[in-house]
């Protein structure tokens, strides 16, 4: 009996997690990605393994998703995680005004927090601003973006999924009724056009999901590309994630990883999806905001500065108040185009859950009664990832 065939467009976090879940449930999966793994938004995360505390006040749906998935990822893929927790730090009166709502919000979302005195806080993180007023321990962490994706991709490989990197979608293959039956793509390594047919195509192209969906017909996806800057500095001045206790805002987080720290981020609207320049005033802002939390940043050297676009769901609101949750769209329901589903929005921390919901939808459409097991199975070593078998290498 032949396995049902699925094609996943995009090998960001969403794409690799969907490929894994579908392959694990018994589908034959081919992933198309125009670049290398996680070369879009996913790769450029500062690596925050979210406790959800940042969203506990204003976006509780996202916060609960984050804390639940945080605990699952720690269990199934510890090989890519620095599990040292985080702190929410208050420096002034404005920060303290947020304190009550923060405590209540975390309790509502079952995020376990612990308030510390300034002395206790500075004992844990001596480089913090000594004028801090209070701090809360939260179960944040740091993950390696490429290796998180490689781990899921390696597990997908083990169930037969193939990753066609440097292969760019050119067009959908449609049947007489406008339903999607396969894809035509350009293998950018060899400049050859190829085709794959499938029972279902999953659009996991992140910020580019709108462009991809548009190839299948007159489909309008509500994605608002919302870039932000990150700046990395060359000393690991904190061992845990440091967050500013306040509303989500520019420069409210410092994430340690290996021997450096990354300060993020900003939020603004953009037009060009493929390249967003680094704006010096934003880099300067990160520096200033970072120094408020960790004054010693002023003695470090900039190691890198970069931009990436969040794929936020447009519900009519602007910027940071856009929800950070995700959405599965069955295009048969919304646009009368069968054979295509889109999964969009979301956060890195909820990648596995996004894939679970997407795979549930796909299996429902294909009449397969298989449930998700990805929360239980440990992810394989990320080094077991390999490229598609038919790749000829020069």
């Amino acid at each position, binding site marked *: 009996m032949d396995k049902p065939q699925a094609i996943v467009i995009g090998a960001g976090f969403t794409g690799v997690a969907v490929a894994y879940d579908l392959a694990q449930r018994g589908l034959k999966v081919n992933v198309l990605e125009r670049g290398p793994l996680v070369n879009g938004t996913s790769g450029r995360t500062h690596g925050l393994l979210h406790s959800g505390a940042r969203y506990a006040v204003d976006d509780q749906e996202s916060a609960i998703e984050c804390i639940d998935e945080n605990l699952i990822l720690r269990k199934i893929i510890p090989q890519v995680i620095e599990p040292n927790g985080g702190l929410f730090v208050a420096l002034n009166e404005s920060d303290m005004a947020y304190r009550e709502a923060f405590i209540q919000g975390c309790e509502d979302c079952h995020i376990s927090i612990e308030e510390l005195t300034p002395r206790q806080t500075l004992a844990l993180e001596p480089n913090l601003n000594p004028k801090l007023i209070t701090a809360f321990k939260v179960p944040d962490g740091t993950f390696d973006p490429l290796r998180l994706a490689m781990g899921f991709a390696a597990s997908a490989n083990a169930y037969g999924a193939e990753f066609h*990197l440097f292969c760019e979608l050119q067009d959908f293959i449609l049947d007489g009724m406008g339903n999607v039956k396969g894809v035509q793509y350009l293998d950018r390594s060899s400049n050859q056009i190829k085709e794959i047919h499938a029972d279902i195509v999953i659009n996991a192209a992140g910020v580019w999901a709108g462009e991809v969906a548009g190839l299948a017909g007159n489909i309008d996806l509500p994605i608002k590309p919302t870039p932000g800057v990150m700046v*990395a500095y060359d000393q690991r001045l904190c061992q845990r994630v440091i967050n500013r206790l306040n509303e989500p805002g520019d420069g409210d987080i410092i994430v340690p990883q290996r021997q450096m720290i990354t300060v993020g981020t900003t939020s603004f609207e953009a037009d*060009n999806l493929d*390249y967003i320049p680094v704006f010096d005033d934003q880099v300067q802002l990160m520096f200033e905001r970072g120094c408020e939390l960790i004054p010693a940043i002023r003695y470090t050297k900039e190691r*890198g500065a970069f931009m990436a676009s969040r794929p936020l769901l447009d519900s009519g609101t602007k910027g940071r108040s856009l929800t950070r949750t995700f959405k599965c769209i069955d295009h048969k329901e919304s646009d009368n185009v069968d054979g295509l589903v889109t999964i969009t929005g979301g956060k890195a921390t909820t990648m596995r859950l996004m894939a679970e919901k997407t795979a549930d939808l796909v299996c429902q459409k294909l009449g397969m009664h298989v449930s998700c097991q990805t929360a239980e199975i440990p992810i394989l070593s990320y080094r077991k990832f390999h490229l598609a078998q038919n790749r000829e290498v*020069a």
Partner: protein
Amino acid sequence: MTQTWHVTYEIFRKKGDQPSHFDRFEMEVDPDEYVLDGIERIWAFHDRSLVFSHACHHSTCGACGMLVNGVEKLTCITSIRSVTKDGGVIRVQPMRNFPVISDLSVDMTDFYQRMESVGHQPVVTIGYEDSKGKFNTEDDLLRLSDCIECGLCISACPIAMTTPAYLGPAVLAGAQQSGDLNPCVLELVDSENGAWRCHSAYECTEVCPSNVDPAWRIMDLRKKLVSRRIKKFFGIK
């Protein structure tokens, strides 16, 4: 006030079985931005056929290693100012000693498998990694290890240039880092294509962007291998 420089990127191109060549792109750049930023703009605005590897843009993924003006660099943290001058050339090629997929991207699969087989630990206690294995702390704080598996050390190694059978600096450093010289790992590293094939060029440590110091680790590994043999010879445990 940001400066503007005019530089020429010379980019190595290779598609399928066709012969390789270099393409030139005249670019206006800020000298304090990074070599990778220019390459990304070339792809975004000038030549969508360009294939190159990148992911994190801040030296944790190890994907964007390339040869820049003949020297191994991690292009996301290498400023343009550090490799050329106003009016100068930035010659970009894929890393040496890896199979080329296309243009600037190479296949790291065999390399990752070797890192796996020597047991390099991706996440270790902070004290252990910071001290390069000298002491293990009771602390339960962990961090991702220094080695980002970028392959620059292997690209720079003269021995790796003449034989792909040589495990290479990162892999040997990985065996030293794990601290676990079990029989499987010993078979790999205590061999003619393992730690004994190194001939002290020290280029690996020179180009490592991530504080691994593979040359020192290879020599430390040799010290451990020799002391094992001596102990075994004298029947000491």
